[in-house]
């Protein structure tokens, strides 16, 4: 590691100002794509650094904060600094995969900065891999599986599947109309809760409350919370705390929506 660093520091040709501008732009773009779609901070820092140095910069300093990335590139006597605002979008592992792939190919010197720009443009307009209905059904099945893991029987599984699928459809519709994220969570949890309480109202099972608990699991901010833990462990305290609080707020939103549903349907609490 150390050997490589010294080599890259002293044996690279200094980049033209023009090229350096391109390098910082691309490195920042990569970082933005990763942070936006659910990568943890350490990965963002590493990938940005690796991509930037592979494209010809001597050194790159990265500052990852919850909603902004700042980068300074150094090359010879020149340096440039740029920041970019990052809005957290949903988790999208495919984009993380593509960025990772590009960064690997650049390191292997199979791509230059012009190819990288082309590739990032392509990533920005990737067609969806899974149709809306595929996602709805798979998410319904996932929540159904959780109900089985919690010891639910088949009626509970079916109710959970139905509740989670409808909730996922609602969530997709609201997301497309740019509703506030937390509001979407409350509404979706409420709808899941109302449908899941059918199991209690119609006495479909001896343990109907499992349907209530499982049908909202599609909303649990798993990636947020796991990333929060990983960030904190690896010393990215600011991003870790921010993600943790966001995850906590989303959980509170789920509880609120479900509590409303339980009140409305008059079923006993979990």
């Amino acid at each position, binding site marked *: *590691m150390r050997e490589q*660093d010294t080599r890259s520091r002293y044996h690279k040709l200094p980049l033209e100002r023009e090229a350096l501008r391109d390098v910082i732009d691309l490195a920042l773009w990569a970082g933005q794509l990763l942070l936006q779609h*659910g*990568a*943890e901070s350490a*990965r963002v*820092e*590493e990938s*940005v*650094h*690796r991509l930037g140095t592979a494209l010809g910069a001597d050194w*790159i300093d*990265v500052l990852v904060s919850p909603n902004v990335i700042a980068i300074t590139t150094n090359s010879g006597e020149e340096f440039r600094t740029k920041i970019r605002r990052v809005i957290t979008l949903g*988790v*999208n*592992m*495919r*984009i*993380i*995969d593509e960025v*990772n*792939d590009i960064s690997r190919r650049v390191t292997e010197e199979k791509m230059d900065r012009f190819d990288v720009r082309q590739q990032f443009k392509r990533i920005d307009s990737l067609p*969806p*891999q*899974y149709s809306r209905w*595929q*996602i709805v059904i*798979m*998410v*319904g*099945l*996932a*929540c*159904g*599986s*959780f109900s*089985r*893991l919690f010891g639910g029987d088949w009626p509970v599984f079916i109710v959970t599947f139905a509740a989670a699928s409808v909730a996922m459809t609602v969530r997709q519709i609201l997301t497309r109309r740019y509703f506030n994220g937390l509001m979407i969570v409350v509404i979706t949890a409420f709808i899941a809760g109302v449908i899941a309480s059918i199991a209690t109202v119609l006495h479909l099972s001896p343990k109907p409350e499992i349907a209530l*608990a499982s049908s*909202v*699991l*599609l909303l*649990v901010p*798993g*990636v947020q*919370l*796991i990333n*929060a*833990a*990983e960030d904190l*462990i690896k010393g990215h305290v600011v991003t870790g705390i921010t993600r943790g609080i966001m995850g906590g707020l989303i*959980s*509170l939103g*789920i*509880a*609120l929506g*479900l*509590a409303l549903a339980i009140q409305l349907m008059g079923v006993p*609490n*979990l």
Partner: protein
Amino acid sequence: MSILDLIGLVVQDAFWSALAAVGFAVLFNVPKRTLMGCALGGAFGHGLRTLLMHTLGFDLELATLAGSTLIGFLGLLFARRWKAPLPIFTVSAAVTMVPGSLAYRTMMGILQLSLLTDPAAGATILVETSITGIRTALILGAIGVGIAAPSLLFFRNKPVV
């Protein structure tokens, strides 16, 4: 519990966890070629957690640490096998162990405290809420440490940035 019952339990657990992991993987839009890895990660990780809780009497927190550590190491294998970044496998698999109902009960407890008419009755709720809250945090911490275990233990590089 007889050995056969135990095997049946763990196999069922692994099956449903695999399905749950794939469901979340689709929600996270993982590349199609990696779905198999996500399923295997979920099955082995959650399966191990259930096995340890039933055989060795591990509590949920410790068993989660063991399960997510397995997910962390399997993730390394899968990342090589399917040429994809690590979090695709580790996060999709570990999401099956995220303590959703504990987090819910914590938040519900907080909401209940606001509705109390008799403050004295709040002591029980407060204690219960604290317990579920701490357990939620511990389990999440266990997941974080577990899936980061390979990089914390073996692949320690000099920080690049």
